[in-house]
């Protein structure tokens, strides 16, 4: 077994264990040191992943995929996790279990990474379960606060159901196809054997199980609750990092089936349409900032599915998928960083006149929202552009038109917030969190613009990537 192929993942596990040991023995005032341990682990893992650049193969008896898609997704996952760690020390300063938080966060990161790299149905199942179990903990971390516990509970109930569906789906597929390895399934299906309505059901159930992690219809209902109730660093993490892994996992799953068979592509297209429309409509009249970002995050999952729909139908689908999730991650994490920096203030009316008291914070918020709408010159625009390009090229014009209509609709609720921050009068002093979350917010805001300017090389790198099987 070429153990070196999973060195990055091992680095994360080791860092998680070290962070836990540190948290056990360090005094209360030094608990934030665990964050440094976690960041160091992530830095090492990033270096180890970069060493895998250019690999395209299965390893560990065809259960683990090393390819461009997994490489870039795992990098995004790690960077996203590091960003959330920057938001955490200030937020959890008074929490008696502060240090342990980073262990759970790293394990959740590992779950997302393994989703991105899974090359086997069982491996995928384990990855989803790891990501889910740690996710519930992250959501319900404030166990004395009803809203947080409620978020964790809803997340858990939805998760239990969709994990059960996932396992049922995987069982059906194993029974019908005789293997769980993607490489073998792909060969079987390419020959046209084993196709049956039951197999469609198997795929649909498995896809639902992964859609849960992505926050897409029909398993999206947990997302707004988690966004509202979970601690803000957890909310930032859960609305972004597992989604990156899930998007790649879903793409692999869909790619098993040749585009014209089994009607899987139309199914994904319908899910995409339903997800984006539902997310946007629900976000319309939200008066709660975190919930609003939560619903917008559902809508964004719908856009992600657009790229998955045309995978194999358009040569640029994978590029668009990677570009869009990267741009989404930057935009959404930055928006949550603003919320965290403002100590989690969440009623929309509390954002009145933000620009007058804290112009920098308001600017970052507006930039991140413009990016989520997809207005240039932000990175979100390039993500959406790539998405529209590939969707039209892949023959799903109606989906692109619907996504454009949804974009217009989404501007309504984003602009409502932007308008408040700039046009209204402030209601009182606006308190902020620590310097660490403040700098994370500024980094995010700058990245929204800088990433767009440097997008040329990113597109080259994404275009050179492949996705197995």
């Amino acid at each position: 077994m070429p153990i070196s192929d999973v060195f990055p993942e091992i680095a994360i596990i080791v860092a998680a264990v070290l962070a836990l040991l540190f948290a056990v023995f360090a005094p209360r005032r030094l608990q934030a040191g665990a964050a440094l341990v976690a960041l160091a682990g992530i830095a090492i893992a990033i270096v180890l992943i970069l060493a895998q650049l250019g690999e395209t193969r299965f390893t560990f008896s065809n259960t683990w995929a090393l390819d461009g898609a997994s490489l870039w997704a795992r990098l995004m996952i790690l960077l996203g996790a590091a960003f959330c760690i920057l938001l955490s020390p200030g937020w959890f300063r008074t929490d008696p279990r502060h240090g342990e938080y980073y262990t759970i966060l790293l394990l959740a990161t590992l779950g997302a990474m393994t989703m991105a790299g899974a090359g086997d149905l069982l491996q995928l199942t384990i990855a989803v379960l790891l990501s889910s179990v740690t996710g519930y903990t992250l959501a319900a971390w404030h166990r004395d606060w009803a809203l947080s516990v409620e978020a964790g509970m809803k997340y858990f109930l939805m998760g239990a159901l969709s994990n059960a569906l996932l396992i049922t789906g995987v069982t059906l597929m194993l029974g019908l196809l005789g293997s769980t390895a993607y490489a073998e399934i792909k060969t079987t299906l390419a020959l046209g054997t084993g196709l049956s309505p039951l197999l469609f059901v198997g795929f649909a159930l498995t896809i639902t199980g992964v859609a849960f992690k992505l926050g897409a219809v029909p398993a999206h209902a947990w997302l707004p609750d988690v966004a509202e109730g979970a601690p803000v660093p957890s909310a930032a993490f859960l609305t972004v990092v597992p989604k990156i892994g899930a998007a790649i996992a879903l793409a692999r799953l869909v790619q098993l089936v040749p585009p014209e068979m089994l009607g899987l592509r139309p199914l994904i297209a319908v899910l995409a349409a339903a997800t984006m429309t539902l997310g946007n409509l629900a976000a319309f009249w939200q008066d709660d900032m975190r919930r609003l970002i939560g619903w917008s995050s559902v809508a964004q999952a719908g856009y992600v599915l657009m790229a998955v729909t045309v995978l194999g139908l358009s040569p640029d689908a994978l590029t668009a998928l990677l570009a869009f999730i990267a741009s989404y991650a930057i935009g959404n994490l930055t928006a949550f960083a603003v919320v965290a920096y403002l100590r989690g203030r969440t009623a929309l009316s509390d954002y009145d006149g933000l620009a007058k008291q804290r112009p920098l914070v308001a600017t970052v918020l507006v930039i991140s929202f413009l990016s989520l709408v997809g207005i240039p010159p932000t990175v979100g625009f390039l993500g959406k552009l790539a998405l529209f390009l590939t969707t039209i090229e892949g023959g799903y014009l109606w989906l692109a038109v619907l996504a454009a209509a949804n974009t217009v609709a989404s501007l309504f609720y984003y602009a409502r917030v932007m308008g408040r921050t700039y046009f209204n009068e402030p209601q009182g002093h606006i308190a902020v969190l620590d310097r660490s979350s403040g700098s994370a917010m500024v980094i995010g805001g700058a990245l929204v613009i800088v990433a767009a300017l440097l997008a040329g090389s990113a597109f080259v790198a994404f275009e050179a990537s492949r996705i197995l099987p």
Partner: protein
Amino acid sequence: MLTLAILIPILGALFLAFMPNTSHSAARIIAVATSALTFLVLLIVWAGFDTGAGAPAFQFYAEAPWIPALGVAWRVGVDGMSLALSLMSAFLFIGCIAWPMENPERPRAYYAWFLFLESVSLGLFMVLDLLIFYVFFDLSLVGMFFLIGRWGHGDAQGAALKFFIYTLAGSLAILLAIIGLVLTMDPITFDMRALIAAQPLAGMDLRGGLILLGFVAGFAIKAPLFPVHTWLPPAHVMAPGPASAILAGVLLKMGTYGLVRIPFQMMRDTFADYALPLALVALASILWGAIVALGQTDLKRRIAYTSVNHMGYTVLGIAAAGALLSGSESAREMALTGAVVEMVAHGLITGALFLIAGGFWARAETYDMDAYGGLAKVAPRLTTAAVIASFASLGLPGLAGFVAEVQIFVGTFAVFPLIAAIGLLGILITAALFLRLLQQVFFGELPKAREGFPDVSLREGSILAAILALVILIGIYPRWLLDLIGSSTSAIIGG
């Protein structure tokens, strides 16, 4: 050089945004100086611009890579049409920035947004890359959203939001159409010159029609044409005077400029097939804009609706020019030249009219025409300015509007005689509505409340005088402008 003209205002905006403790007057001086410097750069470009017969279509071309994988790059260059529009915009921006605002709240931000918008507008007219064109197109919405929402009055937030959402819908239609257009190129490129040369949609009926529909819908919202003009009146009424002047004078031109540059030039065949329906839409805008304007009692709304009418003339000229692939070249060229002159003339005239309207608000906080009367007695200089601008707008010979409209109609008569004949009615109604406006506001009896109505200040007066002098100059000696514009229109018509 062109890149410099785009960069200067944005640098000025950043400077203002990050310089704390700048006083109101200092901020204004910096902003005016920045915009004047930009205009100077464009004048240098103009001096070096070759209008001769053998000159290349796009001059002062410069390029820098951005996303090679998608065929996107920073490409700038001007032809006669875009240079004329850029010059007009830069000129109008100086006037609007210098226009006195009584204590705008947060003056630094106010002037910074204006400079930002100037950079975006010039960028839009001068880039030769479809994607960056779209970037600027969208950014103009962002800039205007904040200008209207923060410094407008009345229900400014609602108007700003409506403007933003409405026009974003249009710009997304354009984005989809752009994507549809560039996907026909192999390898994919957003280079406008390559697309103009390739005419990639020739012979594709349905696809070409859909793409054209996307472009026309988007640009029609921006222009705006009937029936998608409804965002315009509230945006204008709530916006501060100078922002209205920019909105009408510069931003509306983005729609008509885009219509010429993209569908007209890049998909000639398809455009010619659908020129007749486009001309009908233009006719509807001409009549609708004029008739509805006649019914308004609100000063600013009345001017706003005449914009719909005037943009109708422009689009009529464009449609006539693109209706045929060959034949009656000189008439079509005349129609197109007229359309471009109309863009320049309307920018100056309506800019002046909205600045005047802004002056009314600053003095009496109402746009209701019934609240005024007999102002000629107390404000003779304001009256003179308003009379010149109104007469120019209704197309009096000797002023800029006439030069434009006569060419549009003469050119259109050769292609769509019936539509041109009906369109002339629009001029008649516009004449009536402006004459009645003048009569109501400036003549007749002076209400008691207006006896202390102050005349234009020195600064207001000199800004208006500069703009109107240009309007008169174009009216009596249009040669220099026609040479500049004509150098590009023959190339645009001829293919």
